């Protein structure tokens, strides 16, 4: 057999993959890339301060919750989201109030910005009767935040990508102009839900923005085991979906990319955005607190990109907030968090009779029988 090596013949039939650069507006020292800043939507000073406040509040909440967890007051494992604040803030703020969110679990800033009161969040962490989900879910499994247009998730991640697309179908079917923003992590980008979500959205031309928070680890497994690509955003191309890669710890870059994506999606072209972030804390309180599966030097590098100090440097540099303003914002956030936790502790436990509610639209005979048996043993 003779084999010709002439590449020029086969070349034009070859799929070409060009991996994207990472969009960044705000440098690690708070300096702005003016060219990048000139593109797309721009946050005003007031909006920047507002979102910064939420990011601080969310981090204060994260840290206080970890402390409460050590004290045994949090009812289940907790997954801190430190490092994800800018990605949450920029993506959710790019939506209209009427738009919908199919979250994943590490979305604490997002939940706050959507308006879920701190007290409700703590009641959820305590799994008491103040929780809208009636204490059924783990801390950050957002089950029923419908009032804030946040759809429902359970721990087996991936599914939110595909049901978000079905939900978007229903929106369009009913003549609504609303958009759905769906979230997953880097691990989630390996699931069936991810593939189905992108494929169905593309095939049906539905208004969904897909956010992938690539925080480099799925518990201990590095992103290099999720994909043999440099950028997860590249995967979008295989579905005929536009993909973007952004510095997810840069509020401005996230906001600009998200705003662009939301407008594209609203017209029926779904977009996927990969946000490069870092999970500064363990996966959850059940993870190895030392995170020995990581190279410690790597964390140092990512810490230099931390979204909150970066914004603080920016605001100091451009005279938007003074050092004492920043100190006050932190102080207020910490106080607000403490007060909310205290208020949420006051809710009584969920009554045992709630055990059988909401399995079906009506209570069935077997559930009545089983409840009676359980109540008789308490």
């Amino acid at each position: 057999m003779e084999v010709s090596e002439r590449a020029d013949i086969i070349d034009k039939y070859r799929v070409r993959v060009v991996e994207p650069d990472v969009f960044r507006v705000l440098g690690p020292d708070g300096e702005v890339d003016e060219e990048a800043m000139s593109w797309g939507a721009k946050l005003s000073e007031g909006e920047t301060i507002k979102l910064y406040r939420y990011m601080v509040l969310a981090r204060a909440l994260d840290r206080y919750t970890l402390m409460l967890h050590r004290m045994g007051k949090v009812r289940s494992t907790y997954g801190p989201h430190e490092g994800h604040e800018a990605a949450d803030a920029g993506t959710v703020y790019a939506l209209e109030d009427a738009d919908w969110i199919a979250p994943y679990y590490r979305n604490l800033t997002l939940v706050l910005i959507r308006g879920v009161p701190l007290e409700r969040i703590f009641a959820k962490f305590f799994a008491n009767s103040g929780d809208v989900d009636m204490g059924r879910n783990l801390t950050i499994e957002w089950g029923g935040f419908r009032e804030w247009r946040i759809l429902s998730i359970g721990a087996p991640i991936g599914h939110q990508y595909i049901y978000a697309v079905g939900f978007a179908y229903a929106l369009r079917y009913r003549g609504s102009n609303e958009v759905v923003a769906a979230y997953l992590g880097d691990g989630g980008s390996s699931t069936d839900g991810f593939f189905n979500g992108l494929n169905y959205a593309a095939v049906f031309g539905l208004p969904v923005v897909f956010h992938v928070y690539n925080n480099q680890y799925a518990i201990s497994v590095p992103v290099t085991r999720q994909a043999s690509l440099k950028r997860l955003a590249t995967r979008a191309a295989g579905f005929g979906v536009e993909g973007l890669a952004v510095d997810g710890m840069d509020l401005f870059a996230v906001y600009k990319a998200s705003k662009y994506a939301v407008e594209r999606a609203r017209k029926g072209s779904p977009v996927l955005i990969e946000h490069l972030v870092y999970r500064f804390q363990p996966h959850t309180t059940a993870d190895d607190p030392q995170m020995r599966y990581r190279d410690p030097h790597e964390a140092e590098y990512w810490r230099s990109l931390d979204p909150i100090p970066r914004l603080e440097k920016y605001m100091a540099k451009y005279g938007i907030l003074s050092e004492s303003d920043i100190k006050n914002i932190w102080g207020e956030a910490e106080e607000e968090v403490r007060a909310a936790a205290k208020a949420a502790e006051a809710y009584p436990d969920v009554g045992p009779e709630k055990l059988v509610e909401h399995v079906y639209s009506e209570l069935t005979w077997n559930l009545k029988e089983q409840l009676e048996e359980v109540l008789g043993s308490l």
Partner: protein
Amino acid sequence: MPQVGMAKAINMALFEEMERDESVVVLGEDVGKKGGVFLVTEGLYERFGPGRVIDTPLNEGGIIGFAMGMAMGGLRPVAEIQFVDFIWLGADELLNHVAKLRYRSAGRYTAPLVVRAPYGSNVRGGLYHSQSPEAIFAHSQGLFVVIPATPYDAKGLLKSAIRSDDPVVFLEPKLLYRAPREEVPEDDYTVPLGKAKVVKDGDDVTVIAYGSMVHRALEAAQSVRHSVEVIDLRTLVPLDVETVMASVRKTGRPIVLHEAPRTAGFGAEISALIAEKAIDYLQSPIFRVTGPDVPQSPLAHDEYYAPTVKRVVNAIERAMKY
């Protein structure tokens, strides 16, 4: 009134519900122009168009997840899984998410969808066009499980399922798609979910069945000299325990009949309930007549994998001799 088989009766239900309620949509593989591989959705595409009769990419997780989102968004999707054997690609969506949505959101979100799927053996379907996995859905808290045995019931039950606020797994015995035929009214009627039906009265033995096995029970009942009562469960979840117990209290000799494999099958649940609630009335053990615990259904053994009339007759005789 037209004489129709079950496939046509289901088609009538879909057509009428789509006419009645604009939020009803149909989705799945080949449901559009082709009208489904069993022609259950025939004519819907032409009448209601591609926005309501939706051919999907080939992935059951996609179909069920997509339907879940539609239902959360206020539609009433009826998703077709071409064969129930293929449903496991969507197991996470169905069992973890659709089933638990109402519970995990404390009633704030619901997914009132119907997943329709042909099931069952005796159609030379081999290992992957023959399965009867109803017990798995019945064991997934939050789903209704409905299995019709006649064209009339299939139409009425499907209409109830579409209007139900709970997600329904609607399993269709494909053996019965074309025959037997019966008169099915063209007007709007429903058959309630959660209600079994005594299809034949009797005093000596109770045969509890569903789907195509109901017909086998009836045939067996007619070929013995004993007085056999036959119950068609119609809905497995929620189960009509009253009808079952009333019959068992009367006859004292229960036989549970299904084509699914025996171990941990739905017959085990029925048997346990009878033991708990009616043991004082029993005059024989509770017998199960089921498919054997091998993959359902090996082609070479397809004719006798599912219980035959003869096996049901043998069980009746055993119960009477006890």
